[in-house]
Each structure stands twice: as C-alpha cells, then as structure tokens.
C-alpha cells in the first residue's frame, strides 16, 4: 500500500523520537531499574557472604522489623533519623529561611555573603566531616579551645565521644554543610514575591515578624515543598557525615547510629563484625526505600496544597 506524504512525515517523526528516547531507556533500565529490582529480589533470599542461598520469602523483612538481634538496632537508628529530620528541619531549613530573609534585604556586603553561605555546600561531605571532626576534637579542637580561652572550661566536652552531644554535633556539622542550599532556594522564592506585596504589607502595618509569618512564609510555599521533601529524603538516607565523623558503629554506644550505617554494616560488614548479610541489608534498604517513597509523596502532596499562584 502506498504511503501518503502525511504518513511518511509521521513515521519520520516517530523514528526520530525513538532514536532519542530508546538509548536513554536502555541505559536507565540497565544501570538503574535493574539494580534496584535486583536489590529488591536479594531481600527474599538467604545469603552466605556473597553466595546466594535459598528463597526465604519475607523472613529477612521480619528479622529487620521484629527480630531480637536486628530490630532493636534498626528502631534505635530510625529514631535517630527522626531526631535528625526534626532538628535539621528547624536548624537547616529554618536557619536557611532566616538567612535568606537577611540576604533578601540586601545588607552591606550581601553579594559576598550570598556566595559565602553557599561555599560549604560545594565542599565534599568527606572534607566537611573531617573538618568538623577536627573542630570538635576534645584536645586541640577549635570549639573547646575557644571555650577555654573564654574561661568556660566547664562547658568543654569530648563532643563526639559524649552520648548526650554526639548526635547533636553531627546534626550541627550537617546543617553547617548544607544551610546554603535552603538559603538560596528560599532567597529565590522571596525574590519571586512581587515587591509591591511586601510594600503593601508594610503600609498595612506589619512588624518584621508579622511580615515573615503572614506574608513571606506562605508565599514561599513552593520553596518549602522542595526543601522539606529533599530534607526528608536526605535525613533518612543520612550516611556520609556520621560515617566520616563517628564511624560505622554509630559511636558512642550506638547513640549516633542511623539507618544508613546499619544498612552498610549489615550488607557489607565492618571491621569489628565481619558478618555480611546481603539479604538483611537488602530487606532494610527496600523497607527504607518504600518508607521514603510513601512518606515523601504524602509530604509533597500535603505541601503542594499550601502553594498559591500569584
């Protein structure tokens, strides 16, 4: 059957689309989708080291959630992830919001500060972790040295070695590392607000706090959606800073243990325990993935409802 010019054009267009899309699909399937599905599948098998054993159904999942050995460690780590989420939401995202407001008002040297606040974000997490480990060193760290020089010797501590301060120190280091990101996202959000709206609010009689609470905060809702969702994902995937600063065991005594460390220890083992269990590790990773997908989606949907059009 002869092909009409219109059909020929359509065919040519479709071939072109296929030419562009197929390589990406093949690449994604091979290097992203397949490994994720494999990891999911691993969770249903028994493992001896790198050797796959028999199919065990949901046994690994039960062990992760309710097993006498594994579950207390997992739930303890989960709780620390929740603490980190809450603390970072306040310190990192909240701090970013206020820093953005300061920069929005264009104080003296704001161009320098705008760059300065973002510099730690581009540093490697390994470097930041190591740097803060030095800052917090009980003997020669700059924090304790500063306290000594101010005569506040009583406040000096082995920050990373004390159960009551170790997790807080990690959270602080993380907030320092990443606070520039929410700052810039919020700043962009604030700059999207038509200036007349801020001026109208000032004429209406708002104080600085009322302006932030009643006008700016609701109008930067799209930035909040992005930042809260990313922080939620980041807080439950938290690994690098704890790994670099306190090691795989979440020392001292598991007070800084987080799910990322538990997964790594379980799947790949560590120096103190050479046991490797891909099955349990994969089960934990799968549960973590599902938890993040479900709750991050719910969070996003809830936050999107707050967003308004100008």
């Amino acid at each position, binding site marked *: 059957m002869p092909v009409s010019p219109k059909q020929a054009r359509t065919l040519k267009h479709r071939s072109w689309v296929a030419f562009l899309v197929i390589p990406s699909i093949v690449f994604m399937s091979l290097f992203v989708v397949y490994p994720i599905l494999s990891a999911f599948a691993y969770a249903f098998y028994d493992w001896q080291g790198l050797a796959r054993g028999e199919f065990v159904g949901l046994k690994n999942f039960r062990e992760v959630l309710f097993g006498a050995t594994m579950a207390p460690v997992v739930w303890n780590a989960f709780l620390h992830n929740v603490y980190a989420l809450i603390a970072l939401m306040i310190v990192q995202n909240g701090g970013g919001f206020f820093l953005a407001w300061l920069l929005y008002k264009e104080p003296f040297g704001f161009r320098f500060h705008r760059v300065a606040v973002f510099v730690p974000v581009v540093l490697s997490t390994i470097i930041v972790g190591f740097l803060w480990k030095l800052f917090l060193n009980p003997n020669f760290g700059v924090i304790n040295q500063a306290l000594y020089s101010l005569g506040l010797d009583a406040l000096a501590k082995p920050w990373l070695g004390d159960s009551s301060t170790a997790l807080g120190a990690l959270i602080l280091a993380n907030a320092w590392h990443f606070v520039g990101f929410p700052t810039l996202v919020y700043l962009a959000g604030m700059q999207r607000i038509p200036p*007349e*709206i801020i*001026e109208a609010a000032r*004429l*209406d*009689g708002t104080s600085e706090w009322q302006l932030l609470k009643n006008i700016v905060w609701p109008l930067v809702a799209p930035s909040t959606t992005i930042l809260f969702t990313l922080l939620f994902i980041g807080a439950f995937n938290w690994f690098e800073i704890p790994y670099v600063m306190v090691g795989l065991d979440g020392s001292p005594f598991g007070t800084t243990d987080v799910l990322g460390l538990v997964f790594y220890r379980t799947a790949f083992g560590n120096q103190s325990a050479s046991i490797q269990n891909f099955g349990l590790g994969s089960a934990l990773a799968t549960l973590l993935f599902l938890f993040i997908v479900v709750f991050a989606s719910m969070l996003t949907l809830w936050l999107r409802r707050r967003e*308004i059009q100008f």
Partner: protein
Amino acid sequence: MANVAIRDVRKSFGAVSIIKGVDVDIQDGEFVILVGPSGCGKSTLLRMIAGLEDITGGDIRIGSRIVNDVPPKDRDIAMVFQSYALYPHMTVAENMAFSLKLKGVSQAEQKKRVGDAAASLGLTPLLDRYPRQLSGGQRQRVAMGRAIVRDPQVFLFDEPLSNLDAKLRVQMRAEIKELHQRLKTTTIYVTHDQIEAMTMADKIVVMHDGIVEQIGAPLDLYDRPANRFVAGFIGSPAMNFLDGRLEEGGLVLPSGTVLPLDLRPSVPAGTKITLGIRPEHLQIAPAGTPGSIPATVSVIEPTGADTTLIVKAEGGNLTVVLRERCTLKAGEAVALRPVPQQAHLFDEQGKRIAFV
C-alpha cells in the same frame, strides 16, 4: 483627612538626581493628580509620601506632622498599587481585614468595616474568593476596598488603572471619582495618562524631568499652559506647534505665510516664537484663503462624535479636530486657519508669552 505639604523635596539615587526640589500644597479633601511622562519622578514622589522611599532633601508634612522619618505604617495613609498588590493567599475579606487585624480591631468591627466597604464597591458576593479568581476590575476594587477599610487620612494611587482595558478604565475612573466625592478623603493619584488627569482631578501637578512644570485646575492647564511642555502634554490630541517670527501683521512662518494675531504679544517684533494651537482651534478654509496655512489631508479618523484629520503642512504634520461630519478626502488640498483668540505663544525657551 489631612492636608499634605511637600516642601523642596529632593531625591537622588547615588549621583543621579530624580526629584530636583518639588513644592506642592494639597488641601484637605482635595483630589490631586501627579501627571507626567515615564521617568519624570511622579511615582518616586508618591512613594516618598508613602514612606517607601527615603527623602534626600526637603520635608513632607501630612496634617501637622513632618513625616520624613515616620515609617509607612505610622503615616496613616493607604496606597493602591498599579499591580493591585493583593495578598494571593488570602481571600478578598482577609485582604481587606488584614490591616485591621494587625491593629487589633475586634472581629465584629472588622466584619462590619469590611462588609460596609465591600457593599459600597459591589464586592459582597466576592468576599470568599481568592484574588486569582477575580477579574482585573474586581481586583482593583478589592485594592480600593483594602484602602477604604483603614479610613486613612490620605489615599495614594499609583497608576491604578494602567493594567485595565480601555472600557474598564473609563468605568473605574468614574468609580474612583465617585468614591472620592463620597468619602472626601485627601487623594494623591499618579498617572501618565493626561485624560485620567483631566477628568478626575481637582488639581493637576504636571511633572517633567524631576521638577514641577505647572500646578493648576485641569481647565486652567488646558487653557493657559505655562510652557510648551505642558501645552504639548495636556490635551488629546496634542497641541500643534508652528515656529515663526513675530512681526507687526502677526506670526510669519518660514514660507512667508502670515497668520494674524488678535492681541499684541508682550515681546518685540522680530522675536522668534512658537505658536501653539489646539486641534479643535484650527479651522478648515478653502484652499488659498489669505492668512491660512496651505495643507493636504493625509489621514481621516472619524470617531463618531468628531473627526480627527492629520494634515501635511509646512513644518510637518498638524492635527485638526472637527466637531461636524467631514466630507473631505485624503489627498485633498485645504487651508488651515488658527482661531486667533485661542492661540498660545511660547518663546524660544518654551515659556508662555503673555499678551498685552
């Protein structure tokens, strides 16, 4: 309500001087319009009155108080912005009540004042809607309602009708004027549209390049413009200008055409002057009429109520407005005769020349 006094007010951004010493007196209850082309400083002056811009020099007084260093919220003013500046996350009612809520006015009082303002502006059915659900005209009314509920001493309007279509602009013009007649609140209104200025103001302040060119009632400005800038800016279509030399017989154009003048100007013969004549004061005469300007009809624009002609004459195009229906055709030769009693004369610096 209050009077507003602006005394030698100046504004500079770095080395650039935007407002170069402005003096304006606005009486209690007066509707004053600041008008001028883009960049003349009218919006900056309004923002200085609002407290949204610092004052580089001079004083602004609202009532008996100098407000130079008083924050915007304490000046007892309300402003309507060109973009309306409604809070997009608040309903119409919340937008209007926001300032009252901040002041700690009781819920019942808030509801009453918002209800009254909404009723007077026809906004009652829209109180629960969000700004994005409103048309441009409705948003403008909400912005006005938000100003009204505050019951301020002075209303400030910054080009409030610029974002509306032509028909709505005419309607809103009447509504704002009617609102002022009802509330009698001192109003300062900025526009670049001289029709808005002419139709709404008690007093017009014409600004140009950071200075005040003339202050006066609309028809005073129209009938006796102080200089060539005001003459050309006020009136639509704009005034025609013809350059020439003053001689005993009248104004002599470069081509030698003599246009007779009824009164004797207060400058000596031989002075270079410009004659300004409004389009409706140019009469059509048969071609070759003595004391008239030979011209050719270029464009005919019938508007129904009158007809605007663009004609080609010496010195460029001239505009003529005819009140009667026009039978002329494009390309037809005509003669234009300025009504001598309606002529305006300006010297080389553009200043108005008086008649003796």
